[in-house]
């Protein structure tokens, strides 16, 4: 019945379009009377009425009679007719069908962006409410400043500092890897590479961005981590088999294309006239890049880094596989650490009852994580806005 309902509404809309258009076209007289809007706009306006009326009564019909009922498609057809009829009747020589139809389109566009915004707000509030429930059993002070994380222990403790430290440690390693690699390859691509080389290199780098993180994760756990462990022990360090370094390195590789691709676009957007001005003063290419191009591109590069950082902070799969679950509070990259995202994943995997502090703590972690990336994105946005007008 559902398919029939949709098809009938579309059919009614097509009929309404045709009827509205023909009706409007018929109003034109040979002598001089002209329509304000083209006949097709009268048709579109009538069709929009049919769509809205049809959808409204179809939903009402489904609610009253049930979606499987024979009456639902009937209600849809009826609704379409009721919706289209007054609009059909309104068309006259000076009726502004074009303006009215465009207003309907505008409302549609607003509604679409509204859905995205409302979804975000909805997620924030659902997480926020669960977080508040969690804080009824565990005090926010203990959560935010406690240095011991053991949600399944007896007694359970929910100090989130080790998770934050682990997240930051891995993020710092990732940025330390991806920052120079990404930025330098961007400079190479934008300033030194020939156009042919660039059109080849850029897509190849972007393939790296397309590797699913779960693949990168087992690459980290099965290839990189043993490698680090082996070479570390050969040099006399004690290395955990799941180390922050392994996860950070692979996560760094994951965000290299993000940084290089964005920075490359930004460096390319620096006007050629600035480079010419610098060359004309007798500056070399590297002086021009260091002193003119990069400073001009700096705000964009900073925001590329910020995006990369929030990507790294939110990344889960690689750290689940490569960094481990032990909530150690350490700055040693060779030790096993865990991150906020890993803990959320492990807390909610499998069957859970949603009233224990253990499960609810995932929401608190999620909320903190969300807040963290929100602040980062906000900072990035502000930096870009502040310096956007610098060159023009």
């Amino acid at each position, binding site marked *: 019945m559902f398919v029939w309902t949709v098809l009938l509404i579309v059919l009614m809309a097509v009929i309404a379009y045709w009827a509205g258009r023909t009706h409007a076209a018929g109003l034109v007289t040979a002598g001089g009377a002209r329509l304000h809007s083209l006949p097709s706009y009268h048709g579109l306006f009538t069709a929009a009425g049919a769509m809205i009326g049809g959808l409204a009564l179809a939903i009402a019909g489904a609610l009253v009679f049930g979606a499987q009922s024979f009456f639902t498609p009937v209600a849809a057809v009826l609704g379409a007719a009721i919706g289209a009829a007054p609009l059909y009747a309104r068309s006259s020589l000076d009726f502004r069908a074009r303006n009215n139809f465009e207003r309907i389109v505008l409302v549609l566009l607003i509604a679409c962006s509204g859905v995205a915004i409302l979804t975000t707000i909805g997620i924030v509030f659902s997480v926020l409410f669960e977080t508040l429930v969690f804080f009824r059993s565990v005090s926010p002070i203990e959560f935010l400043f406690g240095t011991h994380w053991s949600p399944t222990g007896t007694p359970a403790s929910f100090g989130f500092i080790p998770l934050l430290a682990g997240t930051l440690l891995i993020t710092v390693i990732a940025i330390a890897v991806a920052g120079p690699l990404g930025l330098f390859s961007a400079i190479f691509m934008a300033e030194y590479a*020939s156009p042919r080389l660039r059109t080849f290199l850029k897509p190849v780098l972007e393939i790296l961005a397309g590797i699913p993180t779960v693949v990168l994760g087992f690459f980290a756990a099965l290839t990189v981590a043993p490698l680090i462990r082996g070479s570390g022990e050969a040099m006399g360090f004690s290395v955990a088999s799941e180390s922050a370094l392994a996860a950070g390195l692979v996560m760094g590789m994951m965000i290299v294309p993000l940084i290089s691709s964005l920075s490359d676009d930004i460096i390319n957007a620096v*006007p050629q*006239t*600035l*480079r*010419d*001005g*610098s*060359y*004309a*003063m*007798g*500056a*070399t290419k590297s*002086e021009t890049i260091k*002193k*003119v191009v990069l*400073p*001009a591109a700096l705000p964009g590069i900073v925001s590329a880094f910020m995006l990369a950082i929030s990507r790294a902070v939110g990344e889960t799969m690689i750290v689940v596989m490569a960094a481990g679950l032990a909530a150690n509070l350490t700055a040693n990259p060779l030790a096993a650490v865990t991150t906020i995202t890993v803990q959320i994943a492990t807390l909610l995997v499998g069957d859970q009852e949603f009233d224990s502090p253990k499960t609810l703590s995932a929401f608190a972690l999620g909320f903190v994580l969300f807040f963290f990336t929100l602040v980062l994105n906000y900072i990035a946005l502000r930096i870009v806005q502040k310096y956007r*007008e*610098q*060159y*023009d």
Partner: protein
Amino acid sequence: MNAPVHHQTLVTPAHPKALASGQFKVTARDVDVYYGEKQAIKDLSIDIPDRSVSAFIGPSGCGKSTFLRCINRMNDTIPTCRVTGDIKVDGNDIYDPNIDVVQLRAKVGMVFQKPNPFPKSIYENVAYGPRIHGLATNKTELDEIVEKSLRKAGLWEEVKDRLQHPGTGLSGGQQQRLCIARAIAVNPEVILMDEPCSALDPIATARIEELIDELRQNYCIVIVTHSMQQAARVSQLTAFFHLGTLVEYGDTDEMFTAPQEKRTQDYITGRFG
């Protein structure tokens, strides 16, 4: 005039009043410039004297900007561009493989059509060149160079209280004078100007023209312009380009009153172009 005799008719100033003070600063012989397959300049020869303003005029696409950009090798930044023939500045072939293009551009400065100050402070814009060429050993010297350059460009009084403000915040005319100050700061001997007033209003244009006239005392200036009035106002010598060739080069007053070539006359009287 002891210019070497060539198989080509050499276009030199007919009545070189401007030559009284010295010899030719820039000389070119049989220059051809290609963009890929397309020839932009054909067989151009010219002698440009020092301490004078030479204006290049001609319809769009006639090669005047292209030739201007050859004099400090700015065309090197265009990968498909190829230059043959001799261009000499002070008798040194600037397309010699041994020449350092960095040194050349310090000697032959350039001001562009659209003001292009760096997104830095006014001070840093002017200090940029002296810094990369190591012209100042300490802050005091650098300050002096910046002030002197801004004074020469007639901008000092307007900006002396806001040297740390961004150069991009100035008006268009001020930005262009900042770019001239920036070019002067590295002590060039030749200043190339590629339609320096085309983005400016008449008042700012008049200001720049006055400035060009003052700078003539110390520099060899070559200016590309689309305004024949401007060429007549600021230059002593005028070169008329058409379809990639140099049609005529001579005393500005003569060019505008009694041009030797029919094409020049047609152009300056507005019959084509």
